[in-house]
């Protein structure tokens, strides 16, 4: 079975169109990030979070009234996954687990007819929250740096740089998408927490993986077809790897759809973020990374002349 016959698409000739698409995506992404604002989860904010499973759940608004009464105004209360599970988040976090204790006893008092069990209870102190935020930024920075060095070392510096720019493109665009989609469905929680963070780091790895495979083909073709222009070689390489790119990304996307549907509430945010990232990453390895290398190299050649 074959999805692709030998293709001969002029990818590089159309790169201006794709630059435009990328810039527009980035602008939308940035608008989402700064316009709507990122919603951080408890990991990065610090606070107290309870996930409770009720026998017969009270109305969310009643829970809110009860929690407002004990002084945790502005708490975030929503159903999580299925209607019996209610998630309560407050940025308050007294010493020990006092806040959670208070909330639990208040709910018991307020809704004696609906028993609940604690599915999850987290309390994160402000120092830990700040630390996790810092570590997240370090992690993204360190990954990009290592990738740039490794790819620069295995290919040429310009390839490393272009690869990292492509990653940056993927991260910003994906972040924009999940910021915009967050809160639209109760079944899809896309708050920025540690799991989503992990998704971003994996997507960085995957995006560069795709890019490296295209670069690898370019490196090989440069050796074989010495007379051809870089423009032609790039087109040929992208076409040659197209079938592999689509099949691999397709399989990963299939697996991710499975994770989204059956992986449970905890893995859903991860899988969804990675899903968006894989689509963007596949696109960027063809149109952003390779095209950038082409433009950088052509400019340099002009200078030399």
């Amino acid at each position, binding site marked *: 079975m074959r999805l692709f016959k030998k293709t001969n698409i002029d990818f590089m000739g159309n790169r201006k169109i794709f630059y435009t698409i990328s810039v527009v995506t980035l602008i939308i992404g940035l608008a989402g990030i700064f316009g709507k604002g990122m919603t951080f989860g408890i990991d990065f904010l610090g606070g107290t979070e309870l996930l409770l499973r009720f026998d017969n759940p009270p109305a969310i608004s009643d829970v809110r009234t009860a929690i407002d009464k004990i002084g945790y105004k502005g708490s975030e209360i929503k159903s999580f996954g299925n209607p019996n599970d209610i998630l309560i988040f407050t940025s308050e976090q007294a010493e020990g687990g006092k806040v959670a*204790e208070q909330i639990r006893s208040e709910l018991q008092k307020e809704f004696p007819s609906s028993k609940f069990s604690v599915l999850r209870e987290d309390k994160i102190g402000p120092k830990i929250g700040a630390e996790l935020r810092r570590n997240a930024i370090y992690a993204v920075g360190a990954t990009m740096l290592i990738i740039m060095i490794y790819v620069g070392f295995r290919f040429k510096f310009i390839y490393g740089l272009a690869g990292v720019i492509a990653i940056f493109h993927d991260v910003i665009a994906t972040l924009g998408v999940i910021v915009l989609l967050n809160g639209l469905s109760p079944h899809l929680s896309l708050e920025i927490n540690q799991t989503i963070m992990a998704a971003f780091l994996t997507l960085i790895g995957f995006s560069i993986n795709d890019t490296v495979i295209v670069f690898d083909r370019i490196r090989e073709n440069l050796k074989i077809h010495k007379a051809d222009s870089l423009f032609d070689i790039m087109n040929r390489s992208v076409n040659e790897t197209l079938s592999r790119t689509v099949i691999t990304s397709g399989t990963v996307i299939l697996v991710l759809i499975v994770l989204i549907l059956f992986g449970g509430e905890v*893995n859903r945010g991860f899988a969804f973020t990675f899903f968006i990232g894989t689509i963007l990453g596949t696109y960027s390895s063809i149109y952003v990374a390779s095209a950038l290398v082409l433009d950088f190299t052509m400019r340099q050649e002009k200078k030399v002349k």
Partner: protein
Amino acid sequence: MKKNRGKLFIIVSTFALALYFLYPTYRAYNFEKELSTRVGQDSAKYVVDNEIAIRESKAKRIKLGLDLQGGMRVVMEVNVLKMLEQIAKNKDDQFALLMTDIAREAQTSDENIITIFQRAFDAKQIRLSRYYGSLREDNDKILKRLQDETDKAVDRAMEIIRNRVDQYGVSEPSIQKQGGRRIIVELPGVSKEDEVRQLLQGTALLEFKLMKDPDIIYKTMEAVDKYLAGKGYNDSTSSADTTKKTAAPKNTLSALTSKSDTASNAVADAQKSPEQQAKDHPFLFLARPNQQGNGEAYVSENDKDKVMRILARPDVQKILPSDMAFYFSSKHLFINEGVKYFSLYALKKTPELTGTVVINAQATIDQSFNQPIVTMEMNNEGSREWARITGANINKRMAIVLDDAVFSAPNIRGKITGGRSQIEGMANIEEARLLEIILKAGALPAPVDIMEQRSVGPSLGEDSILAGTKSFTYALIITVLFMMIYYRTGGAVANIALFINVLFIFAILAAFGGTMTLPGIAGIVLTIGMAVDANVLIYERIREELATHKALRAAIDAGYGKAFSAILDSNVTTFFSGVVLYQFGTGPVQGFALTLMMGVTANLFTAIVITRVVFEIMVERGSTEINFG
């Protein structure tokens, strides 16, 4: 065949090794299944019969993370600053000021406390010898000693916490030190948060303190009352809630004081309105002396903080005798109209004896009063001291103070020899048992603060296991089917490699005592994607080579040869991002990074070496055509 003999040998032996590491997990699973079918006597006998085997297999099996089996994770930081504050001598206002500065800085900084400490002292040009060590010692020497002491305190705190956890009876707890002064405790299967917090955080500072003479106590309290009334006392810090709170015990006051006032005539005029009373007797209105004159006073739960605030005021401190300190009872004495009332005790500041002499503790139910108690045994030195102290203070009251709360204050009836004592005042036997553990394990050298506390209930764990297995199975089925359809024979070979890859990940986890978490399962699912990618790369190349009408053998060689650099580079980059994730992530994220790294590494072996050996053997056996779809 000969050419591949070496490779085949390596493949078979790694496979055997993987099975060896996975065997305990399989056995532990079987034992559990077997146990769940048996009940009562039968199951107990089964456990005894297979005790060693069960224990061994449990120790070597793949452990489930807290997110899968439920439990608690607590990150604590040893408050070394508090300890430094405690061991300082000649503490004055300047010292207190410095300490607040240091505490503020330490709150956000990750720097070594001693470094911050040194900088703060240097900035103010204060010699450390003023508060620590002897005058002749120079700063460096003192700093070095303080550093030693803080290091020791963290180690000791960890040891004590381990002791407590062991005695509490958690199976497979994990207690780790992170950085300079952080301790991470993971308790699988535990969900009683309040108990765990008490277990981990209770400093268990046990002190035996003599109660001051009731006459002196009441005179002092009256003096404080008069002083405050004279100043037109008003608790400016909480003037708003003063009105709210005083409204509640309106009748209580008259009920309490109308009977008799032998101890003090200060609150005689019960007919006055509460507002008037509060104005006339600002202190005694909050802390009402006991009518029997036993030296205690009642304070409502709402006023506890306020009373302590008053007593801590520097101007009030001047009125108090220098060796008098105030403590509340651990438990409320009575409830009036829904408001709990606590006893206020005035004790001698310096303890007669501390918990360091306690060598054993035992929680029981006191037969005569049917209440939970903890009996303590002291060491020889402690017993001698205890006999001397009790002998010299007959008919006085000795308060037993634990973590700054008075648990009981019995009257000393006679000299106590043999070093026995008991603590009363626990709410139930569980609390008594917790206290027993804490007393036995010893007191923490410094208080610990809980920085992070996460707990997962068992039902969420079950949900997660179900979700994890389901997604894992579906992902595997989809991938396997796709490979079979798209690459035919090649796909089947790749699928074998894929199964071995997953087997290897589990085996590596088992071999290194790793933990399987939900994100870890996600990591494996992703590895499946990566593994497929490697084979897709190779097969696409082989197809290209076959299209140029190369012989099968040559096409396979060229395909593997040309795909190798791409696979290596892409796997190495993914591996690096795994390393970074592991380095900067915590708990769950690390689990993900771990399986991803293992999977990517195993992938290089399974997708490149194993599949190739299979093809080469097929070619050697005479296949001239292998279907790559």
